[in-house]
């Protein structure tokens, strides 16, 4: 537990030390939102709003997860392999990625609200949407972290993460888009709770799978 927490703070410090990391991602999110705003010109209908929000989150997530930190140098990794438990490393990495993705998701939602309005989201349903975004970020983080680590071990970058990851995040995308469209159509948060449960279960499931499988990657 302490080691995991220590690793999370270590990754966070590594993140802060790199000049372009987070700022670059935020700029990517802002630019994407603005481009979408330019295309729809004004207030899109709820279906378009929902589709735009999740597609942008998905692409931002791929960018966020597959970037390499300066601390991912082979020498540093070789040291870490001798020093830390692989499960702790994976959990720390997943938490770190999920936190970054959740932050980006909030940024995206806020920007979309500023530029294109909230659609029909208001009050508890807006909060429900944000919670859904955060859960999606967690589920995407859990799935994509392992995939990005596989792609990194294969010596390939963003392209490989996309090829391997896109089909696998489809369950998450299906559930989160149906959650989003439910909330957009005015369904109460209490009546679409099963989608929250699904997202949580997907996050927990892929997290557990990752924990079981990651030590094999680490050892090789």
């Amino acid at each position, binding site marked *: 537990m302490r080691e995991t927490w220590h690793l999370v703070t270590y990754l966070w410090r590594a993140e802060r030390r790199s000049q372009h990391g987070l700022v670059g991602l935020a700029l990517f999110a802002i630019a994407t939102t603005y481009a979408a705003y330019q295309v729809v010109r004004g207030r899109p209908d709820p279906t378009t709003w929902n589709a735009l929000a999740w597609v942008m989150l998905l692409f931002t997530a791929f960018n966020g997860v597959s970037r390499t930190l300066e601390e991912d140098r082979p020498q540093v990794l070789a040291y870490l392999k001798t020093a830390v438990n692989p499960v702790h490393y994976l959990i720390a990495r997943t938490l770190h990625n999920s936190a970054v993705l959740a932050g980006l998701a909030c940024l995206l939602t806020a920007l979309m609200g500023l530029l294109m309005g909230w659609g029909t989201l208001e009050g508890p349903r807006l909060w429900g949407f944000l919670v859904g975004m955060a859960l999606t970020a967690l589920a995407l983080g859990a799935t994509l972290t392992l*995939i990005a680590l596989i792609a990194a*071990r294969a010596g390939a970058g963003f392209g490989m993460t996309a090829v*391997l990851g896109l089909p696998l995040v489809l369950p998450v995308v*299906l559930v989160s888009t149906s959650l989003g469209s439910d909330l957009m159509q005015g369904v109460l948060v209490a009546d679409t709770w099963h989608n929250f449960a699904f997202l949580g279960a997907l996050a927990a499931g*892929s997290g557990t799978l990752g924990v079981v499988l990651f030590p094999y990657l680490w050892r*090789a």
Partner: protein
Amino acid sequence: MSMPQSPFSPSLGVRLIRTFGVLLLGYALVMTFTVPLGPGIVDVRVSPGGDVGRRTTFKLDIEGHNTHFSESTPVVFLKRGEHFVVIRDLEATDDQHLAGQVILDKFVPALSWDVFINSPVDGTMSFANGFFAQGLTANTKAKSPDNDAVLNRLSQADLGFHFPFQPNIMETIRNLMLHVPMWFTMFLLMGISFAQSIRSLGAAGTAEHDMKALASVKTGMWFGALGLLTGSLWAKFTWGAWWVDDPQLNGAFVTVMVYAGYLVLRSSVQDEVLRTRLSAVYNLFGFCLLVVLLMVLPRFTESLHPGKGGNPAFSSYDLDSALRAVFYPAVLGWMILGAWMYDKTLHLERMRAALAVSRLQRATKAGLPFLLLTTSTWSEPFVNHGKMGVVVGVAVIIGLGLGLWSLVHTRQARALNQEMERHS
């Protein structure tokens, strides 16, 4: 250099199983194409004739499939709840076409009626909502034109061994024995790959397990691609589109994508140990998520596809005994064929390993004939004769696919054998 064991000298048990599989497949294919389809109504066209005072005449043109209208004039009646209307002045132009007419009052108990045809040769056939009384007024108090006395005139028919007729699906029900086993076989092969990937990660894992996982994914991809292509053709002529948005279809497409990703990942890693690890981890992770995608999520969504969601079309009540008698042997036969192809592919992988050749393998891509021609002239051969053309098309696709597989397989085997001889 030690020559890997040839696949042509298998043990007696394996040989028996393969013979059994080929026999099953032969039986299933012969049955698929020769068992007759039960008679049914393809279409009912209603044209309002002239008004005679307060009464309206409707002319009915009925098109049947595998029917025998000219052998004995059938009984035709409309039914809605407790109400009956008998169609009179029946005239059969040939075995498939029947014309008749009915005279109705301005007020009828219902506007939309189910059409029933009964004859001693064909038994009873029905066409839901086949008759719509255009221009009349529905009134629940209206007198029923006829009563259930017509039911006493019905006769039973002995149709013999036949596949059930279903509206719209018609002859294409035969595809059950061709398209569906493609997916069953693919899942069997992906299951083998899953098991071998687990073993390759274990303490006793060897390159052999990795090779088995790869060979079964490669073979499974062929069945996946054939499943997509045949399903696409079948969908075009039953659902009206090459591809529809449907959880089951999404799942099938994503499955093929995941394993294409597996092959791409393998081809990008040169180091053997690392490749085994990476691809095994990805295979296990992917397979588990596919189970969620294919088995869990579709149950919570509406689906057009049989067997899932709200449309259990091929479940217990329509998968009748005739279909079962052919479907189960077909599935087993295709699976044994798949296992045989896997074994042959594995032999090639062993030769590759023995030669220590690492070649870049292109991932198999499943091409989908999206948005082809939409004119009606080219599609006529498919639609005529109860859509029998779709079954032939599906069989041709599978035949071409398997032919292509054996062509590719033979070429690879020849190249590897030549290289083997040069080395030894």
